[in-house]
């Protein structure tokens, strides 16, 4: 599922980028630092080390989730200012549990967790650091996290499908690799608190579906 989504995302990127490649060379110059508005589409693969590590460890046996995503970015709104929206989809399986004395007892009932954070953020892209045009950037914004929890044992009313709001900050570096194509790496942090949590969150006194993120990105300017 995750792999298919990543391939699809790359295809979308390729499609969206194609008209730009068809343009002439001066267009590339116009898109240089400090000039007019730019539009960028990107795909990424993200790893998130969960803030609620005890809960995730108990239910999934893991403290880090990962998955593909993508987004769009409008650049040079004013000098280095950009805004962007991105979406990541992370799916993990585990088992329903009962937590007793901080120990998780698995009940043998499969569980699937899907986290889909949608980040809407603004940031600042700095002057390239070196002649290799390594561009640092940083930003912050809001996140709406769509959370889904399903199990084979669920009746129609028993699954969880909810949205939570939170904050995101991030910083990264990108390097142009070929014409309008850049690659980059980014680290970030999300905080998405679940109000009145139950389940493992309640047992471990945790409430944050966020955590520290790391992204590898492939972007293309239009």
């Amino acid at each position, binding site marked *: 599922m995750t792999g298919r989504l990543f391939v699809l995302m790359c295809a979308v990127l390729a499609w969206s980028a194609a008209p730009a490649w068809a343009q002439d060379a001066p267009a590339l110059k116009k898109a240089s630092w400090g000039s007019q508005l730019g539009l960028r589409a990107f795909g990424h693969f993200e790893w998130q080390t969960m803030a609620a590590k005890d*809960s995730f460890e108990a239910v999934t046996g893991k403290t880090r989730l990962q998955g593909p995503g993508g987004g769009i970015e409008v650049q040079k709104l004013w000098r280095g200012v950009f805004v962007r929206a991105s979406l990541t989809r992370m799916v993990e399986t585990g088992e329903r549990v*009962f937590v007793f004395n901080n120990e998780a007892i698995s*009940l043998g009932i499969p569980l699937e967790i899907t986290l889909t954070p949608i980040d809407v953020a603004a940031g600042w892209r700095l002057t390239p650091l070196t002649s290799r045009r390594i561009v640092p950037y940083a930003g912050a914004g809001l996140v709406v996290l769509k959370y889904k929890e399903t199990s084979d044992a669920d009746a129609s009313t028993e699954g969880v499908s909810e949205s939570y709001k939170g904050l995101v900050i991030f910083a990264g570096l990108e390097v142009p690799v070929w014409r309008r194509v850049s690659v980059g790496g980014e680290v970030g942090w999300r905080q998405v608190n679940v109000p009145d949590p139950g389940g493992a969150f309640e047992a471990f006194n945790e409430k944050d579906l966020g955590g520290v993120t790391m992204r590898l990105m492939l972007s293309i300017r239009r």
Partner: protein
Amino acid sequence: MTASTARVTAAAGVCLLAGLISFPGAPISAQQPAAPQFLTTPAQLEALDQAAARGLDYIPGEVIVKFRVGVTLAQQTRALSSLRSRPEPGRLEWIADRTARLVTGEPDAVAAAANLTRQPEVEYAHPNWLLKAKAVPNDTQYGARQWNFTLLDMPRAWDINAGGAGITVAVIDTGVTSVNATYGFKTWNGTEIVTAQMPFGISPDMDSARLTGGRDFVFWTGAVIDSQGHGTHVAGTVAQTTNNSLGYAGMAYNAKIMPLKVCLSFWDIQILRAEAGVTGYPSLNSGGCPTSAVVSAIRYAADNGAKVINLSLGGTNPSPTYLDALNYAVSQGVFVAMSAGNEFEDGNPTTYPASYGPQVAGAMAVGAVGRTSERSFYSSTGTFVEIAAPGGDTRSGGSVGAVYQAGIFFTDFNPAVVILPRFDRYSDVGSQGTSMASPHVAGMAALLMSQGVKNPAAVEALIAATAKDLGDAGRDNSFGAGLIQPRVALRGFGLVR
């Protein structure tokens, strides 16, 4: 004591006629078991008679005594010498580490226990209390109406765990008949002692292969038999065979039942008296469940593979022996469900051993609710009540408000009218009481253990955490944490809900 004749009756081809489930036809074969020995001596029988006659809740002349750590034989002798009868330590029947049953020979067991308690070598002593089965018998002529399982959403719970396979539940009670046999027991027929053929049969709605490791602690060394019906009803709620197109369902219908007989019924007493040559009938309220037997059975269950114990018994006298036994059972990985008592309208006294529940993580005192989830009129209340389950309430729900299971056909052995009883036919039996509530929790515990929750303390925590809050918000003295929710507990928890 006697050579009893056993006849294996045909177990196949049971019939259901006019609400009566019976074993048809004559015995098809016979076998002679090793001659069982009765476990109650004439002196103890006399003491039980006295208890019934005097309305005592203990066995006259018997004391439970626990010595302090490190007490030597000489010190035990010294402590026992404080009694007028000066019993030798050889008369101590050990029922647990440092704990023994002592037949003092003194009629006033309360005074004897008080005397022993004052001795420096003794940690505690008390009479050998007689517990009573905590059920209120009801009319037997109504059909199967298991509102209790609907109330608990059991069909959906069974979707998650189909019946608690792999778990053994010890039913410490009046026994659960584990043999199809006819015994020649002596009894009083109104004019003389005669040998009567008394047939016993396994309930056709209880797969005999799931009756395992039973033991009789009070009546005899033979197969476990139930001549009262309470244990059979309780075992039915725990694990009645289900999906067999017959009779009733049970909470943990794939679990095994370990029938441990610790209670003497009217008929047990009658037989023991006649075997001892005592003429006449005992009092209708004869019998009970000696603390010494109950404690021994708890330890036996824990040592022999049971993972859940149901104790639908209770009395109003405290005994640290219960607490020791409960702690031992839990330490061996055994969860214990106990009835909270039926004496709300009789002064609402504290019930033992249930009141030790809150002190033992892994043992729960169970109160009763009726069909509407209201507290049953009889269900005792107090700080010791930890959880609630269906126990029936015929006052608010009519006769269909009882808890129904397949039970021994009462008309066959009603002590008030029957002279020569039989115990091999089964019918619909409706009963109410915390005795009926407790096996719901025991059955639920078996399901949870089968689902992977092995720690008795965790089982208790899960049952409490998922209960439906009733009465005052939060824990209260009527319902404890609330009404059990087996499906919710079996589902457990996800990440955020």
